[in-house]
């Protein structure tokens, strides 16, 4: 366990927002590191979020009004920025999930044997 994974499975394009929104829905207000950890753990290490895409994504979600941010205290009394889901974000989450499921069903139909 002393080695870092040198390859990371890419998050499928267009699903990052959905994953972050769902994490926030499940976790409640959480900082960026926490969100990344949650996604990694919940997916059993399959999906690992790059910081380089996480924070810009969070910024864009801030712009769109899906999340709000405020400074708070972390578990170990460090100052951290917590993101919270907004009602608009909740709505966006349901939209994205239904879209995703629609696409997944379609793909499954195509690759079904026979």
């Amino acid at each position: 366990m002393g080695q870092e994974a040198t390859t990371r499975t890419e998050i499928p394009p267009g699903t990052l927002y959905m994953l972050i929104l769902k994490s926030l829905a499940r976790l409640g207000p959480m900082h960026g590191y926490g969100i990344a950890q949650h996604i990694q753990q919940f997916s059993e290490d399959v999906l690992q979020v790059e910081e380089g895409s996480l924070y810009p994504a969070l910024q864009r979600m801030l712009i769109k009004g899906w999340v709000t941010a405020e400074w708070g205290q972390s578990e170990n009394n460090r100052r951290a920025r917590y993101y919270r889901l907004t009602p608009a974000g909740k709505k966006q989450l349901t939209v994205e999930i239904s879209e995703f499921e629609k696409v997944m069903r379609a793909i499954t139909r195509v690759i079904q044997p026979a």
Partner: protein
Amino acid sequence: MDRIGELWRRLLFLFRRQQFDRDLEEEMRFHLDMKARQNREAGIDGREAWCAARRQLGNPMLLKEASREAWGWSRLEALIQDVRYAARSFRRAPGFTAVAVLTLALGIGVNTAVFSLLHDTVLESLPVSRPQELVQLAWVQGASGGSNFNWPDYRPLLEPESALPGLFCYLSRETNLRSGSISERAHAHLVSGSYYSTLGVGAFIGRTLVAADDRPSATPVAVLSYTYWQNRFARDPSIIGRTVYLDGSPFTVVGVTPQEFYGVNRLSPPDITYSLHAAPLPEGNSYYVYYFARLQPHTSVEQARAQITARFSGLLEGELKPHRNWMGEVKLDVRPAATGEDNVRLLLRTPLRVVGLCVGVVLLICCTNMASLLLARAAARNREIGIRLALGAGRKRIVRQLLTESVMLGIAGGCAGLLAGYWVHHLLITQLAIHQSTAIQFRLQLPLLAFTAGLAVLTGVVFGIVPALRAAQFGLRAATRREPPEAGRPRLGPARTFLAVQMAASVVLLIGAILFLRTLRNLETVDAGFSPRQLLLMTVDLKESRFQGDRVTGLLDELMDRVPAVPGVRSAALARIVLFGQSAQKSVWVQGYAHNDGSAVAFNLVGPGFFESVGIHLVMGREFSARDRGSAPLVAIVNQAFARKYFPGQNPLGRRFGDQGPNSAGKYEIIGVVKDARYTSLRLPPRPAIFQSLWQFPQYPPFVLHVNVTGEPGVIAARVLREIQAIDSHLAVYGIRTMTGQVNATLRQERMFAILSSLFGVLAIGLCCVGLYGVTAYSVRRRTSEFGIRMALGASRANVLWLVLRETLVLVGLGAAAGVPAAFWCTRFIKSLLFGLSPGDPSTFAVAVILLGGVAAIAAALPARRATRIDPIEALRYE
């Protein structure tokens, strides 16, 4: 709704930038620490844990930039950054910036001026309501046509049942205006009843003319233009109701037109308008009117044409039947007239085209010059760009930044260009003899500003793109090592290509300049057939004097008595038409000529001694004398061209001709033949002309006094004026000028072309020299070691000099090779403007190329001489 929220948040971001950066910084640090802690828990210890975390995080700068970019202002921020950077670098190089902005100001300025002129004279619609509905009537007869109609011959077209409702016509003439202390010539338009109503123009104060005013029985009223009211009456509102005297007849001023209205002809806006039928027109002149109408809704131009043609055919059977013999061939046409009278466009089309081409070439030269300057500057900044590239700046970013610099220069040049344009516009107007009026002004309005802005940005991009691309390309290489010495024959890099383009453009301009200069010289030295020197002209009008009707000849006699007696006057004579000022023609039928078709010849009424005063040689017979008057037999003098045409190989003296149809062929007897002369234009060869005795036809004033003087014309003019006033103080004398001035005035356009093209030519060569000097100096510096080696190996100074000059001559050769065919193609278009030489005149082309070569050699010689003074040892040590 979300969009608004989004926009609001984005805007807020602009104000919270620094806070944002700090927040992000802290957030990254937190993330890093958490990651490091995770690594420590996983077994990696101490410093390594933190480094591993750091590696995982990736490039923090990139992360920050990506986060910032999400807010969408990055483009704008980058632009602002580039602009500030560019401003700083311009401040550090004031000399370069000044030269660049000046060059651009010149190139953009002349283009702005020409555009303004073009827009005002050709493109802009008339300031009336719905100008796109306006149409103009025109006539076509065989191969010729025009938009001027004889008046009053075509009057029936105006009748109320006219096929084109709202049809109006106007006539333009000069009139004597007298009001209070003002007594001067004013430019008047005589308009028919529906002029103002069709144009849809209301009055600024008072009222405009209506159909009821256009009757002989109506009270004579007049409307002033705003400009005239402003200049002459100081915008006095009490002008309404005041009486002014036009050619002696009283008119009441009833209104003033709005400031932006200038009639339908931009080039001759009227000072005053009055009704066509209100006052009788002086006899003896031919008058022309122009017809305009407004298309009815749902009527097309074709339909209008059909309507008016049908009406005209009807009239030819009715009111116009007496004129059917010559009107029968005429066809009427209807043309869109949103921009006003056709003549304007036709008159100015060629001059504006030529000037437009010249300024286009000037702009090209300016751009290539700028490109060369920027290339040299970029070469000096290679290290800086290389470092930036090494630090991670994208190549696109560098190019964008350099382009921002050049566009900024372009914009600065554009602003300065507006100033230069104002001055050039003024120059063009005076040279083109366009009347400065509200119609044609250098106005800083939207079309002009948009054009200038567009041109500024476009030139910025055009001359900046190549240096920018090259700089980004070579920057990285240059930052890492010193530039290698340039050995052997230098390749034709972009700087030299630009220079060759400049040379080609200069060749074109030079050829144009020489062609125009030679045309002017040819015109000035052509034999006009008379002697304009020492000839004074004065127009005498006797409308308000005591000499009316039968007593006019009395005035003529008195003038011929007293004027030659004035000290300083060698001789004097009277004529009706002044050479090179007016023209008149008549149809003649010659007795004994087989093909009499009533063709027209030039015509003048002259008094005794005319030909001697004016310097036209009398070939045979005699001049008019005091006896050729009243009831004496009608006589005439003809010129050689007339004699050649109608009496080839025979003696014209004693032969007869007439001017009122084939049956009048015996009316006049020819008593003299004079040498051919050019009567209206130096370009046109002499045409057949007849002269009749003024004393036999004294009923067509005004008369022009031709005074042959010795000494100062101004002083003698004053004396003559006093003599005339002594005869009768109500005699109006105006238009005092010299014949030389009169003739020169007709050369105005040629002179303008010569001046402007020479200016452009000199400008082009000047810019070329600057560019050539820079490029050669740079090249010499680069090849210092090479020259040193050559000289150490035994090359003489002359050899080295030749090496440098050879480059220059190659460039000139390339420029000539491209420029000569281009010039050949361009000069085709100015064929009609030349005189005495063809557009492909070989000697002109040769002179232009040699001139350019010579000047280029001198420009390159200075740095070349520096090359010869290189000390070989120093050169080798330099490397």
